[in-house]
């Protein structure tokens, strides 16, 4: 084996907005091996959730991710409603789906822009983000917030969408369609983009199954996995839409899937708006007095894939245990498969292609000794270890 160079991506790197560390062991420009380290961003949300009431947890989980900030409340609502065993009204379902799909559009537009930026195509970056702006304005009109919408509650939603707002939403959607056409044209037909993304970072169907990848990452490799179809929730069984898949599994296929999904989302929202007109007069939220004992699992299709929330209730006003699995947690692992053997230039875009979100992914692991069942590292030991490491580094520097 020849000597390898370590090319770090992170802890702070222009490729990613969040802290993480990928160590690429390179032979010239070719990546031979990678290691990844996270843990810069852990916030202990699952633990925090146990100290909050069910109403407060919605605002907490909304802040897990800034971009797909409605998918976590969505999944949490599904989980809690499973414990109670209620189904929300049609009107609430439509409103939930509208919010979920608008979020998908804005998240995919954001990704297209970032992917352009990673390829050095800053014009696409700026244009995509400009086109995303009306969507955020729409959010502000509907929910009062451009981000972190605070729309969900147990048993329904917090705000209604007035009949009077529907034409304006429709006009934004129409504008969005032409803009998506323009963007899709610019991306899909550009020969240089083809040269940069086709055949790059290929994930085969088997890889997807091995790594249990979800969302657009899986769909771009021909695995039609989508929680909205597989485990229908909210208004998705009430409207007509199809799961977009592509076969190639490369970066281009992932871009294609995301761009085409935006059209599907627009069509879902349009149908939901019609549904809103039909379900006029219904309550937007059920009156929930208490949460019974039990366990509930909720899933939602976030823009990046399946979000999974598992909630244990002991009958009190806050969850006894709250487990979250975000899509990036499984998707980031596919990077190892996608990038080994590629050049550095390809590795960066294949990492970006799964649209990783590190703050969703951060976990804390607790190790127990398998024989005695004793916990191996407690807080004090970890703190001491940290002091020891710091002093070692200090000595080295001096």
């Amino acid at each position, binding site marked *: 084996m020849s000597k390898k*160079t370590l090319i770090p991506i992170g802890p702070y790197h222009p490729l990613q907005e969040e802290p993480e560390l990928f160590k690429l062991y390179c032979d010239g420009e070719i990546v031979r091996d990678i290691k990844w380290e996270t843990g810069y961003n852990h916030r202990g949300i699952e633990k925090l959730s146990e100290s909050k009431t069910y109403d407060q947890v919605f605002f907490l989980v909304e802040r897990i991710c800034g971009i797909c900030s409605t998918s976590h409340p969505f999944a949490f609502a599904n989980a809690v409603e499973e414990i109670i065993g209620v189904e929300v009204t049609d009107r609430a379902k439509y409103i939930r789906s509208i919010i979920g799909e608008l979020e998908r559009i804005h998240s995919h537009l954001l990704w297209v822009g970032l992917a352009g930026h990673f390829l050095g195509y800053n014009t696409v970056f700026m244009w995509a983000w400009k086109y995303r702006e009306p969507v955020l304005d729409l959010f502000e009109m509907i929910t009062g917030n451009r981000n972190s919408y605070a729309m969900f509650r147990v048993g329904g939603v917090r705000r209604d969408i007035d009949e009077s707002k529907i034409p304006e939403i429709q006009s934004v959607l129409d504008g969005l369609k032409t803009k998506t056409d323009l963007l899709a044209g610019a991306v899909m037909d550009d020969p240089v983009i083809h040269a940069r993304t086709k055949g790059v970072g290929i994930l085969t169907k088997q890889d997807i199954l091995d790594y249990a990848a979800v969302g657009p990452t899986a769909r771009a490799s021909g695995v039609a996995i989508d929680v909205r179809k597989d485990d229908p929730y909210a208004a998705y069984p009430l409207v007509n839409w199809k799961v977009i898949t592509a076969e190639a599994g490369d970066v281009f296929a992932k871009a294609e899937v995301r761009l085409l999904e935006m059209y599907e989302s627009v069509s879902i929202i349009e149908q939901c708006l019609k549904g809103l007109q039909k379900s006029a007069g219904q309550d937007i939220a059920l009156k929930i007095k208490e949460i019974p004992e039990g366990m509930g699992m909720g899933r939602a299709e976030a823009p990046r894939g399946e979000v999974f929330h598992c909630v244990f209730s002991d009958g009190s006003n806050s969850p006894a245990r709250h487990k979250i699995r975000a899509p990036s947690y499984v998707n980031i692992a596919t990077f190892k498969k996608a990038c080994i053997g590629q050049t550095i230039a390809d590795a960066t875009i294949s990492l970006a292609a799964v649209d990783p979100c590190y703050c969703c992914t951060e976990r804390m692991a607790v190790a127990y000794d398998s024989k005695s069942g004793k916990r191996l590292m407690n807080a004090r030991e970890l703190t001491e270890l940290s002091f020891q490491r710091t002093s070692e580094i200090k000595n080295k520097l001096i």
Partner: protein
Amino acid sequence: MAIDLFYFFVFPGLIFAAITGAFLSWFDRKITARVQFRKGPPLLQPFYDFFKLLLVKETILPKMGSPVVFLLAPVFSVFGATMAGVFILLPLFNITTGFRGDLLVIFYLLTIPSFSYIIGSLASGNPLASVGASREMKLIISYELTFLLVIAGIIMKAGQLFDLNSIISIQQAGTPFIGSLSGVLLFIAGIFCLQAKLGLVPFDMAEAETEITEGMFIDYSGSAYAMIKLTKYIMLFILPAFIVALFMNGFRLEGINILWAILKIIVVVLLLTLIRNTNPRVKIKQAVKFFAIWMNLIAVIAIVLIAFGY
């Protein structure tokens, strides 16, 4: 002697080329911003950038590697670019040097900034910088042949004349070289060479921000980085000026023609800006292929056309 120093440091050398280049850099950034629906920087932004780096920011030296080479390389790049600038700009401003082979000297001098970057970045001992340097090296190898072919084509068109003065006067007497088919082909190849020489997208892989975090320049800071910025400003002026001299009959410095001269430079810079804003960055392998096959082919076709008198 005194006049030579004046040529080098004041006009048309260091100060003049740097100031013009800084304004062109503002123009490039402003156009980029307008293309991207942004507002863009104020007119004096390049000067703010430069003087902040030069006077305010501290210069951090890498612990590994050689600090002397690391710091000298940017200075060499400035001098190389200025030297090339003097040789390009003197004939453009109708100052005869009496030097009969300046075209080839310009060709060599124009590579000095790139080589200085490579040497400086390798002296920093940073792995990302070494990746950037290796990319820049491959890029130089690929575009330099094309650039030489373009110059060879121009020399043939001018009737085996090797000096910029006569090339400009031939065009001013007849038609500019871009007015023929072979001229257009050479111009296309030349523009792409400029793009690569200036390190603009799609050929900015040596400093690819999102891959290797500015690659070659990752360890430069403060006044050392200011020197690199200065080189970039100078190159952004002298390379388009060189293209104007080779293809668009240079400058005529009386009356309304001064406006034309400015316009020509701006058109070339605009072309570079538009190429950089409508393309993603290519991989180094693709760039090498692009120059080695397509651009060389275009240049050779143009030379064959010249031989047949088109």
